[in-house]
């Protein structure tokens, strides 16, 4: 297979060609309330060819792998049609690798019987509570082996082993429906999902507490976010802006995003690191065959770097960072984050709280989105802060801000640190979900707009 793919790439009449073939199997278990909505395995086999010719990209993806020659020719024709100005992608050394993500316990070694029994246990422990109307327990694992070959002679075979689980409780009282969830998902192996009994208790407690909470009042607040939300905040409020595919052919944006420009206080540091083994956003090699690495995005409050594919790196005269990622063989790589986090600072959480006479403490991630200018992210749990103490619980807290201004409003960064993966992920350009890790310490943000009644 290796020689066949390398030979095909070398033979195509283009400036650059790459092939990815993927063989995967995934396991899903899904309880919703008492019903086992889904249990079983899915097999995926497919491939893609991407070529660059005279400045134009062509891409073809297929399930009928035997027809790879036909689709390769199609990709070449499409690249010719795109055309444009010829360019070279940033150089990387040709290399040959076989890689398998190391795991504590391989989920493939655990029987479906045992996985089902575990999910059943979690589901029962949530549903046994009287005021809990319904539940969700999802377990997922996947093994995906991708063979990558390029016309430069690079050949990589990597197997990614993912596993994760999510538990959620739904509490209902009349028209008041509240939900709390907890998820774990990364490349460390199966062990973590066996230890979620406490999480089940926790989501029950949180869902029930939310029934009593009042909706937040619309307004502008000082907000302390927990490490999990800090991660989502960093991802949405800044991370996407550092993806170079938004910048490289956008002259005004390149001016705004000049390296060295101040984006936040001098104690603010934001990093993307695809080389963190085991984390949800771990990228041994990206979908262009470049090893994942560590990139300082903001250093001492100043723009220090950005995330690249080989094309954007070449066009901005910078180095590739290993951030060209595709969620599967069905898509071409685009510039994505990996594990993105705010580095810890100097204010212990207790002190941060004491120094906040009036505000909101927002905990635990529900969702987030950005359009490059504005972003929103939402807390599953939130409390008012009064006189430096966590006070009553509130709900429906969705925060918004302006990407270009919000980082300036960070005025305290905590000493703790926590990274979060999960079952979901990031969406961009029709590719979702991409596994990513987000994280950080507690941090305080001034002047956050929150929608409400």
């Amino acid at each position, binding site marked *: 297979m290796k020689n066949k793919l390398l030979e095909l790439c070398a033979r195509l009449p283009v400036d650059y060609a790459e092939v990815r073939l993927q063989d995967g199997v995934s396991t899903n278990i899904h309880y*919703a309330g008492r*019903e*086992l909505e*889904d*249990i*079983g*395995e899915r*097999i*995926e*086999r*497919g491939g893609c060819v991407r070529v660059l010719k005279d400045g*134009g*990209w*062509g891409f*073809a*993806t*297929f399930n009928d792998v035997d027809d790879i020659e036909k689709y390769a020719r199609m990709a070449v024709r*499409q690249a010719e*049609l795109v*055309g*444009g100005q010829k360019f070279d992608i940033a150089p990387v050394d040709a290399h040959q690798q076989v890689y398998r993500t190391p795991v504590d316990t391989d989920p493939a070694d655990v029987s479906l019987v045992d996985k*089902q029994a575990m999910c059943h246990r979690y589901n029962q422990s949530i549903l046994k509570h009287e005021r809990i*109307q*319904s539940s969700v327990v999802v377990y997922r694992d996947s093994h995906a082996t991708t063979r990558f070959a390029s016309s430069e002679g690079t050949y990589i075979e990597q197997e990614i082993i993912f596993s994760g689980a999510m538990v959620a409780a*739904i509490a*209902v009282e009349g*028209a*008041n*429906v*509240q939900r709390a969830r907890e998820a774990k998902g990364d490349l460390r192996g199966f062990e973590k999902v066996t230890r979620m009994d406490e999480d089940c208790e926790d989501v029950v407690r949180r869902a029930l507490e939310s029934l009593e909470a009042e909706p937040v009042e*619309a*307004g*502008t607040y000082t907000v302390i976010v927990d490490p999990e939300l800090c991660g989502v905040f960093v991802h949405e409020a800044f991370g996407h802006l550092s993806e170079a595919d938004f910048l490289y*052919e*956008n002259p005004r*944006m390149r001016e*705004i995003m000049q390296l060295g420009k101040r984006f936040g206080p001098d104690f603010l540091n934001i990093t993307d690191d695809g080389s963190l083994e085991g984390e949800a956003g771990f990228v041994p090699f990206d979908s262009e065959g470049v090893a994942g690495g560590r990139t300082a995005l903001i250093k001492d409050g100043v723009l220090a770097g950005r995330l690249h594919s080989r094309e954007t790196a070449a066009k901005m005269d910078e180095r590739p960072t290993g951030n060209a990622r595709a969620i599967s063989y*069905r898509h*071409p790589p685009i510039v994505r984050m990996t594990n993105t986090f705010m580095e810890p600072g100097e204010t212990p959480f207790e002190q941060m709280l004491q120094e906040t006479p009036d505000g909101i403490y927002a905990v635990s991630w*529900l*969702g987030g*989105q950005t*359009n*490059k*200018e*504005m*972003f*929103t992210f*939402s807390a599953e749990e939130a409390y008012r802060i009064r006189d430096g103490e966590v006070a009553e619980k509130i709900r*429906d807290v*969705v925060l*918004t801000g*302006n990407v*270009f201004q919000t980082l300036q409003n960070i005025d305290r960064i905590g000493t703790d640190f926590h990274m979060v993966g999960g079952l979901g992920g990031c969406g961009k350009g029709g590719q979702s979900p991409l596994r990513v890790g987000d994280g950080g310490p507690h941090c305080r943000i001034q*002047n956050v*707009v*929150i*929608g*409400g*009644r």
Partner: protein
Amino acid sequence: MSDRIAEQVLQAACRRFDAAEVFEEAGETVSVRFEDSRLKEIRTQQRRGVGLRVIGEGRIGFASTTDLREPQRLVEQAGASAAFGDEARFEMPGRPAEVPHVATCDGAMEDVSAEQMVEMGREGLEMSRRANEDYLFACHLTRAAHRQRVLNTAGLDFAYESSRMSASVEVEEVRDDGLLQVYEYRTWSRPFDSVSDLTRTALEKARDAAAVAPTRLEAMPMVFTPKALGNLWYPIETALNGKLVHKGSSVLRGRIDEQVLDPRITITDNPTIDWAPGSCPLDDEGVVARRRPLFEAGVLRTYLADLQTAGLLGIDPTGHGFRSYSSRPSPSSTNTVVEPGDTSFDEMLAGMKRGLVIEHTLGSGQSNILAGEFSVNVALGFLVEGGEVQGRVKDCMVAGNVYEILGQVEAIGSERQWFGSTWAPPIMVGGLKLAARG
């Protein structure tokens, strides 16, 4: 590649199980992508996959694959799944007495070449350049052909083809105080030959958004355009899902034939509209797809159910079991049709002393959907005073409960637009609070 794969899988499965059903789909999509005012990429996506659902000893099992070399492995996996599966509360349907006719496939779609789509995009790009040299233009054009087939041990063997063309146009301007992004989108089962109308609309809106109108925390009437209406509709559609009704987590449980929305609101699920994106003759389980009122004059009439959900709820299947080859059927709507009212868009604006027209939002789906809550950033919204657009609002949010908002609306527009598979007029509501700094 054998074209008899579905039969092979079914034959192997029926030797082992009481009932079995194969869902096979295959399709090809060609797409052309302009970004940053330049043609960047052309893409072909071929896909083909098979899903097998079985009922063994009364329990449901499921497996899927795109690796068609080993049909037997699929049967084994479905068996492993059925060992744990939920009790089947339905019987697979045979061939219906009559298959409704609805147009879903236009043979002319195959003739749409990548070259033609490139030309369409170039025309839009030129319009954008003429309007403003600084605008960055993006356009994504696709044409798709899709074939699906469902066959089961009850004698159903039904296949149909569908075609689809979609185009999105985005105009972006980067300014010192941020970004302006305007997008327009269309999808239809017949080919179209230009994006100039989409581009023109986007350019008009970009011009209206040139000024930024100052805002503060205030309550004001708001018009949700068809594009923004999803914010209000999505929580209700979720609550109509028969699965959530059965589990007790839908606030619409037990409320059939109750007044839920404003009596002026009538919403129908209609899969029988020729060429519409959500149309189909049968659903993906072989149940005849029919037009069904969801809300008649604000009164709840039906939930959305697939076969298993209908069985659990003790109702007749509604023809809303949809899936891909790799998923089990689950309830989903077809085309959502909102009846128009009698207020023109201009009359709506004229009637607002100070109000907001919401075009796009950011961050939907993050709030408590089950409770009917929404809370979104107004990504593109126009402040209107005395019927005149004052400019765009920025950095603000709108939140509320959709049942309260649609329980009593101010006005329903007289002109409808398709957006995705929704055909709806603009709707004006009162009493919502705009959260903004200042």
